[in-house]
């Protein structure tokens, strides 16, 4: 076989492998975003427990406010998750098509 053809084919396979690896590593890195909401929500729940301990009669209101706040604090983690999902499912085919 012509060596240039073999070389080109190897280069293409290498490029595909690099793209897949890059997307996978990127998705993994994107999911680090989960740390932030974890810390934040834990802090919020701790504070809510303190508030309930201080004023047990406010339990219902504190709990509903806390859940609402937790759900909003989750947003950044969700962004990371969506980015990771896009990198895993959409990006590889998108970049390989451009080769």
């Amino acid at each position, binding site marked *: 076989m012509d060596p240039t053809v073999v070389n080109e084919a190897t280069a293409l396979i290498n490029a595909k492998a690099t793209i897949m690896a890059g997307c996978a590593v990127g998705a993994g890195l994107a999911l680090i975003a989960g740390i932030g909401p974890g810390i934040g929500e834990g802090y919020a729940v701790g504070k809510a427990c303190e508030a309930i301990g201080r004023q047990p009669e406010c339990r219902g209101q504190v709990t509903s406010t806390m*859940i*609402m706040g937790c*759900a*909003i604090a*989750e*947003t950044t983690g*969700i*962004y990371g*998750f*969506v980015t990771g*999902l896009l990198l895993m*499912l959409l990006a590889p085919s998108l970049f390989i098509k451009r080769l």
Partner: protein
Amino acid sequence: MDNINITGAKILYTIPVLGGIRITETQVNSWIVIALLFVLCLVLTHGMKVRGTSKRQVVAEWIVEQVTKLVRENMGESFLPYAPFICAILGLSATSSLTALVGAYPPTADLNTIAGWSILVFSLITFYKIKTNGFLGYLKSYTEPIKIFTPFNVLSEIGTPISMTFRHFGNIVSGVVISALVYAGLASVSTLLLGWLPGLLGKIPLLQVGLPAVLSIYFDVFTSLMQAFIFAMLTMLYIGNAVKTD
């Protein structure tokens, strides 16, 4: 690894006009959900009486009362006509997400569904901002507190519908993805552990019984109701804030 299947909505049919309009699972399931809610409304409100009320009527009255209370607390007395809109968002979002319980594709796991709702809410916010401040006042509100802030104000304005969309979408899709992963993982674990059993018994993934149900209580039921409530809540807060003048 081939039995993990995470895909978007399947295209069921393509209408051959205007370059092909795709009818996906999302649309079909949305219409099923709308039909369900319509039937529910008909059943609940059928034969209402002032005295000697039926159980159905009590349920209907409870729903209306709760939503009215919610709207009054968060948006104020003047927005009471919005109670049906908020109730519609709540019902549609919750029922759409809960269809995952019967194994159907939840319409809320499609970005387009929620993007549509968010754009609707965004138009309402902008409408009320323009109505309160006038068009020039609306444009001027972007340059506050100083003119350098204009790009950031524009970004935060565009960010509102995007963050609402991704919050709802991400929560539902994370549930779908985790369920798929757990099912695939349990299947391979049970082939490893129980594969030596003779005949058909070794092929049934016995470990799939039980654990996915517990997970689905959190990921399907809790998250669905939570996200429906949060979406409705944010709608109310944003629209309520739009009419406030400093």
